[in-house]
C-alpha cells in the first residue's frame, strides 16, 4: 500500500495534467513574448510573469507540499516536448522558478492560500529567473535605467499574472466544484461531520 509520505499518484497526475494545460499556454506565450520584444523598452518583461503561473495555480488547487515545484517542472517539460524555441533552457528555468515558489509556500508551512502568499511566490520565482538571467544574459551590463525598467517590469508582470490573476482563476475554478475532488479534507470538513 501507499504510505502517507509524499504525494500520491492521484496528486502527481493531477498536478502534471494541470501543468500540461499551462505548458500549452507557455508554448503559445513564446511567440507572443518575442513579438513584443524587439520594441526594446522591456515591454516584453510585463508578460514574462505568465511563465510562473503553473506553480501558483497548481499549489492553490491541490494545496500540498511539493506541488508547486512539480507543476513548474511539468509545465516546462510540456513546453519543451512541444518544441519550445528556447529548447533546454526552459527546463532549467522551470526547475529554478518552481523551487523559488516552493520555498515561499514552505516558509508559510503550506497553511496559507491567499493572494498575498501567491504574489510573494510569484515575486520569488521572478528572483529565481533573474538569477538565471544574470548568468545567461549579462543583464548587469545593461545601462542602469534600462536594467531598472527590466527588473521592475518583470516583478510587476509576475505579481499581476501569477499572483493576483492566478488567485482569481482558482477562485473561479472552485465554483465548478472540481477542486473538492483533489484537496485534502480540511478541518471544516471534519467539523461538518461532527455536527
Amino acid at each position: 500500500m501507499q504510505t502517507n509520505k509524499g504525494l500520491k499518484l492521484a496528486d502527481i497526475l493531477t498536478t502534471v495534467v494541470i501543468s500540461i494545460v499551462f505548458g500549452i499556454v507557455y508554448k503559445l506565450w513564446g511567440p507572443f513574448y518575442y513579438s513584443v520584444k524587439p520594441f526594446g523598452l522591456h515591454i516584453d518583461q510585463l508578460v514574462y510573469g505568465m511563465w510562473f503561473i503553473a506553480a501558483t495555480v497548481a499549489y492553490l488547487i491541490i494545496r500540498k507540499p511539493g506541488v508547486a515545484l512539480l507543476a513548474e517542472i511539468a509545465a516546462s517539460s510540456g513546453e519543451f516536448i512541444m518544441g519550445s524555441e528556447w529548447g533546454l533552457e526552459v527546463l532549467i528555468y522551470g526547475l529554478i522558478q518552481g523551487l523559488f515558489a516552493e520555498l515561499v509556500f514552505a516558509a508559510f508551512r503550506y497553511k496559507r492560500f491567499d493572494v498575498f502568499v501567491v504574489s510573494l511566490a510569484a515575486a520569488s520565482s521572478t528572483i529565481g529567473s533573474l538569477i538565471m538571467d544574470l548568468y545567461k544574459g549579462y543583464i548587469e551590463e545593461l545601462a542602469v535605467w534600462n536594467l531598472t525598467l527590466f527588473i521592475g517590469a518583470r516583478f510587476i508582470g509576475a505579481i499581476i499574472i501569477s499572483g493576483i490573476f492566478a488567485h482569481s482563476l482558482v477562485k473561479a475554478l472552485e465554483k465548478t466544484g472540481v477542486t473538492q475532488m483533489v484537496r485534502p479534507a480540511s478541518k471544516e470538513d471534519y467539523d461538518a461531520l461532527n455536527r
Partner: protein
Amino acid sequence: MRLDINYRETWLHRINPSLKLIVMTILFIGVLFIHNPNVLMNLTLGFLLLLFAFAGYPLKYLLLFLLPFLFIFVSTAVSMILFGNGQTTWFQWGLIHITEESFFRGLHLGFRAFIFALLGLIFSLTTRPVYLFYSLMQQLKLKPKYAYSFLAGIRLIPIMLEEFQTVQNALKVRGAAEKSNVFQKIKRYAIPLLSQSIRRAQRIAIAMEAKRFSQTVSRTFYYEIGFSKYDVVFAIYIVVISLLSYYLSTIYPYIPITDVR
C-alpha cells in the same frame, strides 16, 4: 515531439535518453560560463553539423524548425546591442547607445540562445518521450508514480488541444469573443480546460492506482533500456567538438574579442 514526418533512425536516436539529457544539461551549464564569442561560434557550427548530418530528418523540415530560432537570435541580441554599457561608441541616438562592447556582447547572447535552442531541438527530435521516462526510471531511479504520471499527461496533450478547439468554436458560435480583455479571454479558456483535465486526471489516477502503476518494489519494465556503443560515440563527439571549438578559437579567432563581459 511527435510529428508525422518520415525520419531515418540514426545513432542519435539510439543513445540512452538519460545520458543524452545529462550531457545536454552539462553542455547548457558549460555554455553559461563561456564568455568568448569565438568559442560559441565554433560550438554552434559543431551542433549544426550534428543536427543536419545525424538527426535523420529531411533538410526542408530542419530549415523550417530553425526559422523561429532566428527570431530568438535577433530578439535576444537586440536589447543588449541597443542599450548595453560600453566604452567605444559607434552610434548614439536618444536612448539608443550602440558601442563596440555592447554589440559583440549582444551577438554573443544571440549565439548562446541559438545553441540552447539547437540542443533542445536535437534532443526533442531524436528522443521518444516513452523511452526517456522508461530510461529515467531504470537508470536514474525516478519513482514510477512520477514517470507514469508524466507519460499519461503527455498522452493527454492531443485531447487537450482538441478540447481547446471545441471551446474556441463554442465561444465563436455564441459571439463571446468580442469586447473582452486578455485576462477574461484566458479565463474563458482555462476554466473549462482545467476543470475537465482535473476530472479526467482523477479518473485515470484511480485506474492507474488499481493497476499498481505506483508500485516501486519488484517492478518489471516493458521497455528495457540500457547502454550501447552509440553512447560512447556521442560522448566522444561532444568532447571532441568542445575541445576543437576552444582550440580553433585560439588559433583562428573570427573577432578579436575574447571576453565580452
